[in-house]
């Protein structure tokens, strides 16, 4: 029963969708503050490589090491996006250019692979991993077992995050102020909200979550570092933010949809279904384009909740 193709795909949709969700949730926070982060891909890779390094070198019990690796990977992501915030918020550079520069600088042929070479991360597998759990011993329960009770701790953490992030964004004063900053920084500023502080904090938070997504790649998916291993996940995450209308709950569903698309190819091939592997492998990216085209109409943007000031540097009028 648990080798039913739908069970397998649902289980791997969640497994492979989780890092997409982390990065996309980070994107929600960043974009809600009015900053567009196109540096997600590079940020994820830096998080992944530092996390892998930490997992190999931090001493202590396995649990402690993995926890340290997660925190260090998130810190690397936060640091990377601090640079982005400095460029976009303080120096008010073009956000598109700054984000692309971060991805190129930190990405698969940049700093992340440089660190991997210098630290010799790839020479041995990352033994201390984030493993799939057997929650309550229910991993073998028909249908629901592999889907819900056989994921990693990070997936369960992501479920908690959806709830917390939704409450924060829509039920707290901070969330309201954050949205105000993203909609109309002038108004927010006039109300006495510190626009710069909000943008910095949420860009950094976004980077930390992207770093967490990267750690998931190097500690849970392939416990061996590979240069450029996220393979475009950062770009899918940026599209997911839009797909999810800047809302955590819808974004989670979107992440699982893309996770399913990513694993569909292998599952069908293992069953000898004759579909071109290239077509299947391209599906997530094809879907990304479809989603972006659909939601990028003016109507969609106004109705779906894109922050009005997204991508616009805020410049207080000079006195």
């Amino acid at each position, binding site marked *: 029963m648990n*080798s039913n193709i739908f069970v*397998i795909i649902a289980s*791997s949709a969640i497994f*492979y969708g989780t890092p997409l969700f982390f990065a996309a949730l980070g994107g929600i926070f960043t974009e809600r503050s009015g900053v567009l982060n196109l540096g997600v891909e590079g940020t994820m890779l830096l998080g992944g490589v530092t996390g892998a390094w930490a997992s190999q070198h931090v001493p202590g019990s396995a649990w402690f090491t993995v926890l340290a690796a997660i925190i260090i990977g998130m810190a690397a992501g936060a640091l990377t996006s601090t640079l982005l915030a400095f*460029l976009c918020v*303080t*120096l*008010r*550079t073009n956000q598109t*250019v*700054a984000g692309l*520069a*971060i991805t*190129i*600088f930190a990405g698969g*042929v*940049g*700093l992340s*692979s*440089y660190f*991997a*070479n210098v630290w*010799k991360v*790839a*020479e*041995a*597998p990352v033994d201390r991993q984030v*493993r*799939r759990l057997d929650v309550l011993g229910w991993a073998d329960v028909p249908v629901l077992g592999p889907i819900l009770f056989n994921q990693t701790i990070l997936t369960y953490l992501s479920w908690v995050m959806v709830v917390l992030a939704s409450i924060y964004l829509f039920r707290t004063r901070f969330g309201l102020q954050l949205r105000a900053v993203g909609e109309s920084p002038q108004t927010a500023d006039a109300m006495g909200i510190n626009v710069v502080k909000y943008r910095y904090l949420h860009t950094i938070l976004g980077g930390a979550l992207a770093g967490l997504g990267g750690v998931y*790649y190097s500690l849970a*998916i*392939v*416990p*061996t570092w*590979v*240069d450029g*291993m996220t*393979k475009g996940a950062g770009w899918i995450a940026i599209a997911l933010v839009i797909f999810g209308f800047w809302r955590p709950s819808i974004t989670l569903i979107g992440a699982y949809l893309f996770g399913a698309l*990513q*694993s569909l*190819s*292998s*599952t069908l*091939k*293992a*069953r*000898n279904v*004759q579909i*071109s*592997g*290239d077509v299947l*492998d391209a599906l997530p990216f094809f879907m990304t384009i479809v989603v972006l085209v659909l939601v990028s109409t003016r109507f969609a943007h106004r109705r779906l909740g894109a922050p009005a000031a997204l991508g616009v540097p805020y*410049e207080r009028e*000079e006195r």
Partner: protein
Amino acid sequence: MLSKTRGSLGLALVAALGIGLVACGGDDESSEPAATEAPAASEAPAGSDAPAGTDAPAQGATLANFTPWSADAPVIDCRPEEGPLKAAWIYVGPTNDGGWTQQHDASRQAVQDHFGDAVETTYKENVPEGPQVLQTIEDLIADGNTVIFGTSFGFQDAFVEAAAAHPDVCFEFATGYKGADNLSQFYGAAEDTDFLAGMAAGAASPTGKLGMLASFPIGEVLRGVNAWTMGARMMNPDATVNVVWVNSWFDPPNERKAAEALIAEGIDTLGQKGIDSPATGDAAKAAGVPWAGYNADQSANYGDVWLTATEYDWTVYQIPRLQAILDGAWVAGNYYGNLSDGFVKLATFGDLVTEETRAAIQAELEKLTAKPNSQFTGPINDNKGNEVLAAGVSHTFEELMSMAYLIEGVIGDIPAG
């Protein structure tokens, strides 16, 4: 005013990031200057004072399993006018991929250690199979390299083109089939060790349902898949091998997914061919499924599940060939190594391989050492039920190289295109 200065400072920072990228990513990594000690082989002539080449014997006579393209193939002299011979390797993956490229780079380093100051080696990693290959070759030649090693099948056409454009440069290509006066091909009978690794897998599989990841359906990979399957079925005649085409030489996340999908299908033993990373082993380790790797000994990292693997020793070919260049006696031709000259070998056995299985493998190893490729002797049927070889008939070398069928016992098809 203030904002303008800030804006341009920002742009300058962005530009600095870009420059940083060029510094980090675009650089090729030259190897450390030659090791300090003298070359191990004392009779190796030290570089420039080697005898002028015309009367030196053509090298095909001395290197086993090497045949010049023709009897009157010209001797190519690609020695530099002065300084060490500069040789460059081009890799499809990173030098730390835990498999194919890592082994090639280990060989490059062994070559460097062997020749010391007489040869200066360089490499370019992560070169995609596409238009960049030709550009990379041109850059390397512009840097003074006169020997270029290619290590991925998809580089072949660029090598043919570059060889025509640079008749005074020696080109050495692994795993291809096209030749020229200054373009050699070198590879070897990995299908023999793949067969032996398949025996280990077939014996280790409790249910006889084996699975294999494969890269692209080209001759080299099909030979490996078929030989591996043959080996598995020698130990368990009912065994089947479910093959999944990954469509990449190096894509660890996807390899892991494919291996997990096979395990979810009930596969209880895994193998791989033309797959450069040990990601299959990661999936095998997580599920506790025996695993036969490919082109790297991973017995230390994957001890619980490790069976064995095909390993290559590229130096068996590369050291004599570079020596031939230094001697002024290099001619282009085809090399196909095997177990007897040590070009291919079987990696350390894992604990899962029983004494009985090891003995059976040893017996076959001796047969294949004496007569390479002899496992491809009829009767052989393909997995559609057609007869490929009648009883007692063997493939010619050309048939082996252009193999285009999947053998009986393989579940799967050769993907179109």
